Every structure is written in structure tokens, then in C-alpha cells.
């Protein structure tokens, strides 16, 4: 009885005290600490940009931040085709291509991780594919599919799938051997071993691969859209291409800002997913 009580006491002593109520002031201060360097950096870039414009360098084409943002504003309100439509077309391709890459990358990754012969055969090819600049696939795509959406999807998939596969493979490879031993002792075999042990254990590396895959997909998509002209479908890349022909610096810059913002937003989503995954597994310092 005494031992029982002592044990409960020890448990309570050893546990971290639970966090108190959130202090709104603290959250605001934290947000400000994270925000001001970014705001300052953006302000500096805009200042340098404005200074270069005022210096008169390339004054025939170069526009300052003011005209660029007003061009962006115009596009948003009454562009033709509208900016939202353009973003919609691009994002649709991005989502379809990335989803296909996710399926292909996951299936290939899992097969390669499981089957030694396959790994010996294509393991290094996957690594090689990751280092391929995505633009080199564009001519191949055009030869195979012509100037069509299929070409763009082809480039996006080839850009993203290798990273996703590589992430999954490394996750499976680095499943802790002790956990495997524990799982086998419990009687986990075959499919159940993957479903309940190896795949969950691989998740952090898989998500890291997905994040990298997205970065490659986004680059490949832009490369594809700028080169491949599809009639009747106005995408971000195509819009830049038109701006290039018209020497429209403000329009092209506005599109660059859109590309940057979308890239950052999606990257933030992946980072958040990664962070919460790590926190739940105790892989992050909880103290701030």
C-alpha cells in the first residue's frame, strides 16, 4: 500500500506542471518578435528598389514599387482575364499535378523501400532525378504531348514525385530497429506492421519529402507554364510570358509577387504540419 502511494506521488512529482492560462499579452509580444524583422526586411527591399528606380537606371522599363503594386491592385479588381481566374488555372494544375505526384511518389517509394531488387535497380535513379533541373523535361513533354496541359502536368510530376518517394524511402529505412522488435513481439506482421508501425514512424521524413516535393512542383509548374502556351487557358506563367513580350515590367513584377506569396503560403502550411507532427512526438523543445 505504501509503495502504491509512493509511486503515485513520484508520478506527480516527475510530471511537468501543466501550462497555465495563456497570457494574451505574451502571445502578442511573441507575434511582434517574429514579425518585425520580416517587416523591416521587406521595407529595406522596397527602399532599395525605389532608390534604384529614382537613380534612373533602365528608366524606360523599370518601374518602382508604387506602379507595380498599383498594377497588382488593378489586376485584382478588374484584370481581363481576372487575376483570380489566372491564379485559379495555375492552382488547379498545381493541385492535380501534385496529387498525381503524391500518388506516384508514394507507390514507387513504398515499392522501392520494400523490394530490395527494385531498390538496387532504381534507388539511385530516384536520387538522380531529384537533381534534374525541371526545365529540361519541358522539351520532352512537348515532344510527347504537344503544347498541352499534359505537358505541364508531366513536368510537375517528374519534378515532385522523386522527392516524395525519397522522403518515404528514408522514413521506412530509419524506422528505429527497437520499435520494429517491439512491434514484432506484439505480433505485428505484413500489412499490419506497415499500417501501425513503419508508416507512422516514417511520417516525419515523408512530410519533409512532401514539402520538398511541393517546392519542386511549384518551380516545375512555373517553368512549364512560361514555356508551354495553351490557347484559351490563361495561367500565371503565361501571363508573365505575355508581360515579357510587352516589356511590361509592372505586370511581370506583380505576377512575381503572386508566385512568391503562393509559394510562401503553401510552404508555411507544410512547416506548420511538420512542426505539430514533431511536437506531438516530443521531437521539439516545448519551452519557448
Amino acid at each position: 500500500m505504501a509503495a502504491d502511494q509512493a509511486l503515485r506521488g513520484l508520478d506527480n512529482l516527475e510530471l511537468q506542471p501543466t501550462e497555465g492560462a495563456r497570457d494574451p499579452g505574451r502571445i502578442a509580444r511573441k507575434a511582434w518578435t517574429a514579425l518585425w524583422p520580416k517587416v523591416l526586411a521587406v521595407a529595406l527591399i522596397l527602399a532599395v528598389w525605389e532608390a534604384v528606380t529614382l537613380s534612373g537606371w533602365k528608366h524606360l522599363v523599370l518601374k518602382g514599387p508604387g506602379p507595380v503594386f498599383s498594377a497588382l491592385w488593378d489586376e485584382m479588381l478588374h484584370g481581363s482575364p481576372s487575376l483570380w481566374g489566372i491564379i485559379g488555372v495555375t492552382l488547379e494544375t498545381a493541385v492535380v499535378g501534385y496529387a498525381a505526384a503524391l500518388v506516384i511518389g508514394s507507390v514507387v517509394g513504398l515499392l522501392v523501400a520494400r523490394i530490395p531488387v527494385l531498390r538496387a535497380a532504381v534507388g539511385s535513379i530516384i536520387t538522380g532525378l531529384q537533381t534534374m533541373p525541371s526545365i529540361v523535361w519541358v522539351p520532352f513533354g512537348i515532344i510527347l504531348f504537344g503544347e498541352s496541359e499534359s505537358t505541364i502536368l508531366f513536368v510537375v510530376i517528374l519534378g515532385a514525385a522523386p522527392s516524395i518517394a525519397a522522403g518515404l524511402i528514408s522514413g521506412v529505412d530509419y524506422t528505429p530497429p527497437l520499435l520494429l522488435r517491439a512491434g514484432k513481439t506484439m505480433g505485428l506482421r505484413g500489412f499490419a506492421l506497415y499500417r501501425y508501425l513503419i508508416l507512422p514512424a516514417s511520417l516525419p521524413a515523408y512530410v519533409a519529402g512532401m514539402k520538398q516535393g511541393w517546392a519542386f512542383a511549384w518551380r516545375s509548374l512555373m517553368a512549364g507554364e512560361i514555356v508551354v502556351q495553351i490557347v484559351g487557358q490563361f495561367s500565371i506563367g503565361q501571363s508573365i510570358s505575355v508581360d515579357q513580350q510587352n516589356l511590361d515590367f509592372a505586370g511581370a513584377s506583380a505576377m512575381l509577387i503572386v508566385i512568391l506569396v503562393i509559394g510562401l503560403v503553401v510552404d508555411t502550411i507544410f512547416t506548420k504540419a511538420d512542426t505539430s507532427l514533431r511536437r506531438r512526438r516530443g521531437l521539439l523543445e516545448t519551452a519557448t
Partner: protein
Amino acid sequence: MSVSNQQVTPPVISPGASALSPADSAGTATVGAGEAVRLTAVSKAYQTGRTELLAVDQVSFSVRDGEFVCIIGASGCGKSTLLNLIAGLDSPTAGQIDVGGRKVGLMFQEPALFPWLTAARNVELALQSRGVPRAARRAETADLLEAVRLSGFGSRRPHELSGGMRQRVAMARALGQNADVLLMDEPFGALDAMTRDLLHDELERICAERTLTVLFVTHNVREAARLGDRVILLSSRPGRVIEEYVLPRTGQRRIDSPEVSEVAARLTDRLREEMGRHGR
């Protein structure tokens, strides 16, 4: 160790008194009545490069149903190899191992919990993998957590628990495998002395409640003397059974009680002798 000592102290240590040889159960390699585990001349060799390393050499012993047997030995005595063999995670080079169809659970020095699952889900997975229906799992999980005194901590994740608590979750998980025989590979080796002491009491209680047969590997002589009904001493490189001590259970033992110290001292002496053999 003087003879008079042995006569005075109540817990009689009888080296080599019992089932050292398998001959006493009609000479068969299968478990007899009242036996849970029987090893007959078990050897295990590993191929390391060009040389063959004999980890376990001709080890024979048996464990009775409900018995708590501690295996002790210095480094290189093949303790962990032996447990892996009995758990069926590895197969012996020679000899037979019989557990009479009993379920064998294994616990390690590290809790080896799945970090992405809560404590309760970790335990539940053991039930799930042996096919317990969903409806029954929740109640049984709660029972198991209560058995290791962790009710109310089920929703915590492993990293939110202390080392001792994690090891108890691992114990609940091992119990959840419905094992008749629990193999424990230095399960408390990484814990502090106070926690370990409390967990000795808990383990003793749980074993009594569930009539478990336990094979407990340790290199802590006090722990062996505190817990074992019998202590089997292994030699090092290769692992052989060199001695057995039967420790009769006379009331409550404590880690600091004189009889435990007495036994521990004997075990230490014998182990030093064995280690000295390799120092020459």
C-alpha cells in the same frame, strides 16, 4: 563465503540445487507438467566476419509455471540473445526451446513505445494485434493501465511521461499481449534507484495477481536477489549456466533487507570470480 554464514541466514541459497540438467523431467526436450519454459542444450553462434562467435553454449534450464527466474551474468554472457531465442525472434544454432505453446511477451530496457500514439493507444495496439474486438479493447486497456497504476494518464503521449511511467506503459503493453511468460531484458536498468525500488514492488504484485512466469535478465545482483525465486548465473563468452541459486520466499523482501544483501554479496563474489577468469 563461509559455511557458517549459509547456516545462519534464513533464506537458504542452494547452488545447483534444482533443474540444472534437463534430465529430471524424463530427459525430454519438451516442457513437463508445471513447467513453462524448457531449454535443452541451446547454443547460438553468430557469424562475425570470418570468425564465429559463440554467444550461448549448451544452455539448459527450465522454468516452472508462475516462477520468477532471474538470469544474471557479466557482459558477453548472451543474456539478451537467450531472451530473443525464447521469444522466437531468433532461432538457436543447436538445441531445443519449448514453451509448450505459451504466449511469450518481451520487454526491453527502453520502453520502445510508439511516440505517435498515446499511452492508451500503445497498450490498445497490443490488444488489437491479437484480435481483441474494438468494443472490448477500451475496457481492457483501462484495466491494464490500472494494473500499472497509470489510470488517468492514458491520454498522454510517451514523451510527456517520466521514464518509470513509460516503462510501466511498456509493461501494460506486454501484459496486453496476454503473455503467460514475460521475458524482461534489464527492464529497469535505465531508471533511478528510487523508481526501480518502487517498480520492484509493482512487478511483484502484478506477477502475483496474474500468475505470470517471468524470466528477468539483469546485471544488478541486488535486483536479482530482491526479485528472483531462483537466480541463474551465466558465464561470459560463451554464455553457459555456471550456477543456480534457489531463493525461498520467506515473507516480504526489500532491496535493503539483510537477506537480500547477503545473497547479493554471494552473487557478486561468484560473478567476480567469473570475470577474473577473463582477466588472466
